[in-house]
C-alpha cells in the first residue's frame, strides 16, 4: 500500500516536472504550432530556404510564406494560397499539411533546384503532391521561387440544366400493413474474382444497377473455410461508387488483411441496395485515359465536368481487366481539386507493378460529391 502511494507520488511529481519543463523550454516545432514563435532556421542554404517555406505552409502562415518567395511579384498572396488549397471548396480546403520532404536536385553558387514533396492529410486519407522549386541566392540568403499554377475560375454566368431527378416517398404510418413499401432497387453482381496478395485476400468485382431507379449500394463479403465456417466479413467501404444510376456499373474492392486464399473454401457475397433521392447531374467526361506500363504503372486521364455545377470532390475508380475480360484489379484516386464546369483536371491511378503486365483494358467510373451552396 505504501509502495503504491510512493509510486503515485513519484509519477505525479515527474509529470508535473515535465509539464513545467515543456512550458518553459518548449520544442521548436511545438512552439511554432502553438504560435508562440517560429521554428524557422536561417535560409543559408537552398534546402533551408525550402524547409522554411514548408514549415510556413504547414503552419498555414500564408503571408510569411508568400513574403519569403523570390518571385512574389508574379502573383498575389491570394493566388499562392489558392494554388495550395484550391479556389473552390475541395479536399485540400479541409486538409492540413502533415509532413513534407525536401530533396536537392541541383545546386550552384547562385541558384539551385529543390524538390518539395507535400503530404497532405485529407478526410479521405493522405494525398501527396510534388513541386520543383527554383531557389536563388539574394545577398546572403536563399529564396525559393514558387512554381505557381493559377487556379482556373468560372466567369459569372447562368448554365441551364434539366437533368432528371428522383425523389422517394416511403411508406407512411397511415398505410395499411399489407401495403408494400417502395421496392428496393434490383442490383446484381456481374463479376467477382478473389485475388491473393501479400497483404491478404482481395475480392474484386463489379455491381450493376439493373433497375430503373437510382440505388445506394454497398457490397460485403464473407470468407468461408472449407468446412463452411466464416473466417471474416468485410465491406467495400469507399472502394465502390455508392450511388448507381439506372444501368450503371461500379467496381468494388474488398480487402481481407492477413488471410490466405488457400484457407478459403467459398465466398458469400452480400450486395445491398436502397432507394435514394438522386440527380442525373453532373455528367463527367473522362478523356485521354491511358495505361502506362511498369515502372510506375498507372492509368492517367482527364476529368471534364460537362455540367453547370462545381463538383467539390471527385473519386475516380478504375477497373482493370486482363485479355479474357476478367477483373484483375481495382484502384482509385481522389482528385484534390474541385472540378469546374468545362475545365479539365488530370488524374493518375497507380497500379501494382506485378499486375500491370496482365492488364489489357480498363474502365473508369466517377463518384462525385457536391457541397450544397458551395458555389
Amino acid at each position, binding site marked *: 500500500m505504501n509502495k503504491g502511494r510512493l509510486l503515485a507520488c513519484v509519477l505525479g511529481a515527474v509529470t508535473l516536472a515535465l509539464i513545467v519543463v515543456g512550458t518553459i523550454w518548449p520544442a521548436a516545432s511545438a512552439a511554432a504550432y502553438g504560435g508562440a514563435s517560429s521554428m524557422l532556421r536561417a535560409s543559408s542554404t537552398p534546402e533551408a530556404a525550402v524547409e522554411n517555406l514548408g514549415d510556413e505552409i504547414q503552419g498555414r502562415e500564408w503571408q510569411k510564406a508568400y513574403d519569403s518567395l523570390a518571385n512574389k511579384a508574379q502573383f498575389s498572396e491570394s493566388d499562392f494560397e489558392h494554388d495550395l488549397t484550391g479556389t473552390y471548396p475541395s479536399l485540400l480546403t479541409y486538409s492540413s499539411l502533415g509532413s513534407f520532404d525536401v530533396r536537392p536536385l541541383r545546386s550552384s553558387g547562385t541558384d539551385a533546384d529543390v524538390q518539395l514533396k507535400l503530404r497532405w492529410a485529407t478526410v479521405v486519407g493522405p494525398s501527396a503532391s510534388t513541386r520543383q522549386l527554383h531557389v536563388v541566392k539574394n545577398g546572403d540568403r536563399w529564396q525559393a521561387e514558387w512554381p505557381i499554377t493559377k487556379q482556373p475560375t468560372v466567369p459569372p454566368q447562368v448554365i441551364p440544366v434539366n437533368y432528371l431527378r428522383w425523389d422517394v416517398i416511403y411508406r407512411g404510418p397511415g398505410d395499411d400493413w399489407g401495403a408494400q413499401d417502395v421496392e428496393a432497387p434490383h442490383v446484381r453482381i456481374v463479376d467477382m474474382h478473389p485475388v491473393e496478395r501479400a497483404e491478404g485476400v482481395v475480392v474484386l468485382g463489379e455491381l450493376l444497377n439493373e433497375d430503373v431507379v437510382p440505388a445506394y449500394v454497398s457490397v460485403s463479403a464473407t470468407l468461408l473455410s472449407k468446412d463452411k465456417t466464416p473466417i471474416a466479413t468485410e465491406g467495400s467501404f469507399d472502394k465502390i461508387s455508392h450511388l448507381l*444510376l439506372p*444501368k450503371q456499373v461500379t467496381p468494388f474492392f474488398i480487402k481481407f488483411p492477413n488471410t490466405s486464399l488457400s484457407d478459403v473454401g467459398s465466398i458469400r457475397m452480400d450486395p445491398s441496395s436502397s432507394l435514394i433521392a438522386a440527380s442525373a447531374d453532373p455528367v463527367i467526361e473522362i478523356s*485521354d485515359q491511358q495505361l502506362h506500363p511498369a515502372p510506375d504503372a498507372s492509368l492517367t486521364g482527364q476529368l471534364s465536368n460537362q455540367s453547370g455545377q462545381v463538383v467539390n470532390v471527385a473519386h475516380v475508380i478504375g477497373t482493370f481487366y486482363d485479355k479474357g475480360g476478367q477483373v484483375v484489379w481495382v484502384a482509385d484516386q481522389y482528385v484534390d481539386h474541385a472540378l469546374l464546369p468545362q475545365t479539365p483536371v488530370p488524374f493518375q491511378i497507380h497500379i501494382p507493378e506485378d499486375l500491370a503486365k496482365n492488364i489489357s483494358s480498363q474502365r473508369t467510373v466517377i463518384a462525385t460529391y457536391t457541397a450544397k451552396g458551395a458555389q
Partner: protein
Amino acid sequence: MRASLPFLLALQVVAASSLALAQAPDVSVPKTVEAGAAFSIQCAGNGKATLFIVGPGQVLKQDVQLGESAAFPAGSLYNAGWYTAIVTSTSGTQSASFDVLPQSKPSDVSFLARPSRLPVGIHNAITGAVYVFDSYRNLISAPEEVQFDLSNPAGAVEKKSVTTHDGAAWTEMDSTAQQGSDKFAVHAGSVSSERIVAQVPGDPCGLKMSAKPDGQRIQLTTEPVRDCNGNAVPDGTIVTFTENFRGTQSTVDVPLKRGIAEVQMPAHPGATISVASGVVMGNQIGWQ
C-alpha cells in the same frame, strides 16, 4: 391487470367446475354461434345462478334465473374460437362448450402484392396473397372464392379465381409486355383491395448511335432507346460512350434525356467509338 381479473375469476370457476356436484343445473348451449350474432343459453333448474362465458379474449358474466333462457344480444361474442359457458349456483356448477364461428360474409381483406416494381414480360413474377376477414377481423376459415385481377393502363385484364384454404389464397401472375402502372386487385364477395405494380422497361435492345462532326468534336446521339418489347427506356438510364484512339480511351456516362443520350467527344480520325448501357452493347462507329 384489471382486464385479467375477470379472466382469473373465470379460471377459478372453470377449476371449480371440474369438481362439479352431481345436482348441478343443466346448461344447454347452441353448438355454434356466428360471430356477433344474438344467441341464448338455457339453464335448467330453480333459483338464481351466475353464468360465465369464457373464450379467446372475452369473458361475459350474467346473473340468470334457472329454468329460463339467458339471452345475449347481437355483438356480445365477436372473437371466433372455442367458448365455455359455466353456470354456478348454490346447488353446484355446470359447464358446456360451443364454438363461435367467423361470419360467412367477407368484410375485409389483407392483400400482399409483391413486387411493387418489376420489368415487363416476366412469367409468374407477380405474387399476390390475400387473407379474408369478417367484420370483426376474424379470419374466415371456410373456403371462399376470391378473384385476382391484374389490369394494365390499356385496359387488358388478367383474371384468376382461387378458393381460400384456411382463410388464405395466393396466386402468381405474369408481368405484361407493356410498361406502366398496373392495378393488381383482389375481390372477395363485395370487398376488394388494390395495389399498384409498376411494370418498367427491361434492358435496352438494339442500342444504336450516330455520329456527326461538330467543330473540333463529334456529336454522338443515340436513337430513342427502347427495350425488346418496344417500351421506351426511362430517362436517367445511363448510356456509356467509349472512344478508343491510339491506345487512349475516353468515356462518358450520359443519362438518357427525352429518350435519347447525346454527348460530344474529341474528334480523332481513326478513332473507334462504341456505346453500351449496363451489360448491353450497342453499335460501334469508326470515325474517319
